[in-house]
């Protein structure tokens, strides 16, 4: 028996199987004692079921980073390069903003230490740190009273001897130590240093948190795989996107069960929207180029792309007369007009005015929406547009255009054709917009999963145990030493993590390029690289030398499958038992009569055409005209987007 617990800002979701059915328990989170809700959930479920495996998605790391409430970190690097972490890539994120404010670096100057040492790119040691130098360093760090230490020396991945010597000295201080060649033995000193520093920044908090919980706990990583708690405590930088990763894994699992191999996920929340592309044949694809709060985090993370627009995004006009939706958001305070305090229209207000959201309220009626108030304020904000409805429909169209660009970025721009994917939509606002988006991208089907509110916990429940290892080798792809590099990396990995399937891959590029493509390693890896380059960028050049920059090994222990048997297909129905009202909805410039359904009264086999609105506790689905919906055996809403 296993359970998965995903701790979010407001709710802690707990899912498990009992009697052949997925059970969901929702508890309020306990931010002052983040482990409280988890212990309570384990107790409540465990007493009833005899739980022996607890899996956990946590925001402890995420929040410490976002709120800048991590440890006081000492950062140690090669003398002369102490400022690397602050200089970054010497570029500004906003090209035309003369008043741009840079966030303070994670480690301020007095806590950045240099050590006289040097390793060359071929791994030869040019200067070894002597005992006196190491002692000086240790005393200087001790005097600065840090809570954690990060060590990242130049070319430590090519030869870790100097870094190990520094670590041996600093271990005497008895502080959590993050060593760059252990966290991320890859080249590019800023990216490696940043990843190592973030790890140190999070480690005291994460270690303290996990120490208070069962040591047998499994923790979700940003890569989409789970890992034992002691490893998560040692490498918290791998858990920063624990929750969103769970959502993506859950989405893929649900889509696969419903018969889809290729999925675009669309998770639209209040202030931002996450999209991801998943292809069963490729497994969970990760990226090592993530930025979190503008800082590189170069460990593998699921490739989730975020746009700064959501239900709370504000809509207005710029001085040139163009409509503008986002990136400013009404946030929780004052919130949209319809919540009673805001005065500027948001996407949520637009959906209410168009009849797509029920005025009687969100969250099962727990939050009533004020339609009259919304109309009043929107009337003032509608600018040159003839009616409030025209304005509201425009707001939805413009925000959809932003979402469409995001989906294009992860599909068409990467060489994928969205028409071959299903659009799986979740998050409170996602299913309101999904059908229009699918139309814009010629995606034929939309899937609104059951349990959209606990998808992340479900993903954690079904995910595999995964460990990733990598090393920079910088050699030609036909270098005869490469197989040895792989076997030595595998040997090292197996010391750390027993059992499991082994997947080898390599980051490859044409000699002289600056970016790599990750390709499965095998006898035809070079040809695979050419093909991938052609797919992504439209051409390949088989006369050029191909280099392998990094090698990667992923160990996966498959989780036991927890499939509930498909429910038998029930009688075809029309959903009449779930109809609750008729309501006017505005689309394509006119008011139309739509049927409103209550989702939990729908039955497998029910089918009906749009326009319709399907309400459930935490989300609303809008089914436009010419779309048709059917309820699949797992209670997902499957929508045909006919044009």
């Amino acid at each position, binding site marked *: 028996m296993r359970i998965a617990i995903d701790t979010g800002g407001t709710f802690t979701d707990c899912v498990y199987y009992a009697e052949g059915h997925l059970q969901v328990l929702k508890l309020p989170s306990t931010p002052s004692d983040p482990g409280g809700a988890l212990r309570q959930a384990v107790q409540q479920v465990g007493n009833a079921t005899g739980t022996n495996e607890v899996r956990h998605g946590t925001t402890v790391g995420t929040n410490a980073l976002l709120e800048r409430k991590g440890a006081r970190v000492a950062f140690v690097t090669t003398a*002369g390069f102490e*400022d690397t972490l602050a200089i970054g890539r*010497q*570029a500004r994120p906003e090209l035309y903003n003369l*008043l741009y404010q840079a966030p303070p670096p994670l480690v301020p100057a007095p806590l950045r230490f240099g050590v006289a040492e040097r390793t060359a790119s071929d791994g030869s040691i040019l200067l070894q740190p002597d005992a006196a130098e190491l002692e000086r360093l240790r005393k200087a760090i001790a005097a600065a009273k840090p809570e954690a230490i990060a060590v990242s020396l130049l070319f430590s991945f090519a030869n870790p001897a100097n870094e190990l010597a520094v670590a041996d000295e600093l271990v005497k201080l008895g502080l959590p130590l993050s060593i760059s060649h252990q966290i991320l033995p890859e080249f590019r000193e800023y990216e490696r240093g940043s990843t190592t520093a973030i790890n140190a920044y999070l480690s005291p908090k994460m270690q303290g948190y996990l120490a208070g919980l069962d040591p047998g706990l499994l923790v979700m990583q940003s890569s989409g795989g789970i890992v034992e708690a002691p490893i998560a405590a040692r490498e918290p930088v791998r858990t920063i996107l624990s929750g969103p990763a769970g959502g993506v894994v859950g989405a893929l699992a649900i889509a696969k069960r419903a018969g889809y191999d290729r999925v675009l996920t669309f998770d639209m929340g209040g202030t931002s929207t996450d999209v991801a592309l998943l292809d069963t044949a490729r497994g969970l694809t990760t990226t090592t180029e993530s930025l979190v709060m503008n800082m590189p985090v170069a460990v593998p993370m699921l490739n989730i792309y975020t746009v700064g627009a959501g239900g709370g995004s504000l809509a207005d006009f710029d*001085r*040139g007369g163009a409509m503008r939706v986002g990136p400013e958001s009404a946030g929780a305070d004052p919130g949209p007009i319809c919540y009673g305090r805001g005065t500027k229209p948001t996407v949520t207000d637009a959906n209410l005015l168009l009849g797509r959201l029920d005025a009687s309220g969100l969250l099962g009626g727990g939050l009533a929406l004020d339609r009259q108030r919304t109309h009043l304020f929107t009337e003032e904000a509608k600018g040159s547009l003839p009616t409030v409805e025209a304005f509201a429909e425009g707001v939805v169209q413009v925000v959809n255009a932003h979402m469409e660009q995001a989906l294009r970025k992860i599909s068409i721009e990467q060489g994928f054709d969205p028409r071959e994917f299903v659009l799986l939509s979740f998050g409170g606002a996602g299913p309101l917009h999904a059908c229009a988006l699918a139309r814009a991208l010629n995606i034929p089907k939309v899937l609104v999963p059951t349990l959209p509110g606990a998808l992340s916990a479900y993903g954690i429940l079904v995910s595999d145990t995964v460990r990733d290892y990598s090393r920079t080798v910088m050699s030609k792809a036909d270098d005869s030493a490469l197989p040895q590099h792989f076997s030595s990396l595998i040997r090292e990995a197996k010391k750390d993590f027993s059992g499991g399937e082994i997947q080898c891959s390599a980051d490859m590029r044409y000699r002289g390029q600056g970016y790599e493509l990750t390709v499965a390693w095998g006898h035809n890896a070079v040809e695979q690289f050419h093909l991938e380059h052609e797919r992504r*960028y439209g051409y390949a050049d088989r006369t050029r030398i191909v280099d392998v920059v990094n090698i990667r090994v992923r160990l996966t222990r498959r989780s036991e499958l927890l499939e509930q048997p498909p429910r038998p297909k029930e009688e075809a129905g029309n959903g009449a038992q779930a109809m609750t009202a008729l309501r006017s909805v505005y689309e394509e410039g006119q008011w139309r009569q739509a049927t409103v359904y209550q989702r939990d009264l729908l039955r497998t086999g029910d089918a009906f055409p749009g326009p319709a609105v399907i309400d459930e506790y935490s989300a609303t689905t809008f089914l436009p005209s010419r779309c048709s919906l059917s309820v699949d055996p797992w209670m997902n809403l499957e929508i045909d987007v006919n044009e």
Partner: protein
Amino acid sequence: MSSPIELAIFKSAFHSIAEEMGAALRRTAFSPNIKERRDYSSAIFDAAGQVIAMGDDMPVHLGSMPMSVRAALNRLTLVPDDVAMLNDPYEGGTHLPDITLVMPVFAGSSSALFFVANRAHHADIGGMYPGSMGLCREIFQEGIRIPPVKLVSNGVMNDDIVRLLLSNVRTSAEREGDLTAQLGACRIGEERVRSLVNKYGRERVSANATALLDHSEQLLRAEIAEWPAGNVTAEDFLDNDGLSEEPIRIAVTLAVDPIARTLRVDFTGSALQIATGLNAVSAITYSALFYVLRCLLPREAAPTAGLMRPVELILPERSIVNAAAPAAVAGGNVETSQRIVDTLLLAFSQLLPDRIPAASSGTMSNLTIGGIDARSGQPFAYYETIAGGMGARPDADGIDGIHTHMTNSLNTPVEALEYAYPFRVRRYSYRRGSGGAGRQRGGDGLVREIELLCPAQVTLLSDRRIRPPYGLAGGLPGACGRNLLNGEAVPGKCNLQVEAGATIRIETPGGGGWGHEQ
């Protein structure tokens, strides 16, 4: 024809195409200048060659890209699947290392409906110095000059032209790779614009392109309407031309008419064109002005050609801001462009004192190193620009060690550099205390120190080594930059033949301070 809603939708669609072209170029390019430093731009143009969307790339290319398209159209008749190539600063280019490709989008129409173009800074384009960024006396010494020619004709690569080009540059395999990357990016752009036309129809896409131009115009006019009326003047100087000690003057007069909502920008009084390659062609000056205006607009403003409609630009003939052939121009793009921005901002600080920062480092501190890599026996050409301190702002300190104004190129990671070149980097750090004092402090510059592991030719092209970045409102200037070879000072602009084991150290200027120090 267009509505506020359509405008927003098409702005987003065009912009993301330009961004995608840039991403494809960056990820497949070979020159460190393109892949690591992002010294490239991508843009989309309407049938008349007016820019309607640009990626968020390199400000120095902003205003100059349209001239490339116009030059290509003047010289060539482009048919479907043609791609034009050019780099001639006197015919649509900026300086020779910047190669621009232009591709028409017909989408089944009998004439081109749109054009896509990209420009990239290649690591070498031939000429006297490896890296092609040294100071020359005339453009013929700076490298190979390419007027608009068809690189691709009806979908077929013109191999003769490619061979001619590759025979004239030092690192030809890299050049070929970069051209292929640029072509790939153009084709992606062409395909995306074509599918946009197929989706929405020719009339609707063209109408919205026109509306985007009008929209930018409206944004700038609304901005000018809030400025005070009147004339202001400002001047600033480049240290020298690299031969003499004579400072080089850049002068500007702004005339604002908030009622008519127009702006006149007159560079009369600027120095005549000079003997070395710090001359800026008019495209550069146009870009610098475009950049400054764009900074004064809200962040969502699209940089289309419409932005410049309310502006009258007056450039004296054969001057430092409007050079004529055959003046050398390699440094106009990287150094003079920064000084033109400094001068424009100094003028604007009199109109809008609360919005304008003190001078930033005002130089890109260009460092070029070339030679034969003893490890491989192959020639190499390394080029990098080194950031400096940002000028203090009325409400905040300047940022330390960051690229400002006309460039935003990344540094090359030390670990990438040492794999690729026979160098050992000795230091890369802030240059503490170099920012100008003031109520708000100017940002500190950087120190980059490189040991050469084999004999090499080193070219320095840097400014603000004699005349520091100005402070504003009582703030003090930032510290001047310094260049050192084996610990000895060398000039801001020079070419050095150095031995293995030599160390070159660049200390970049700090930004100016803002306000009296309390």
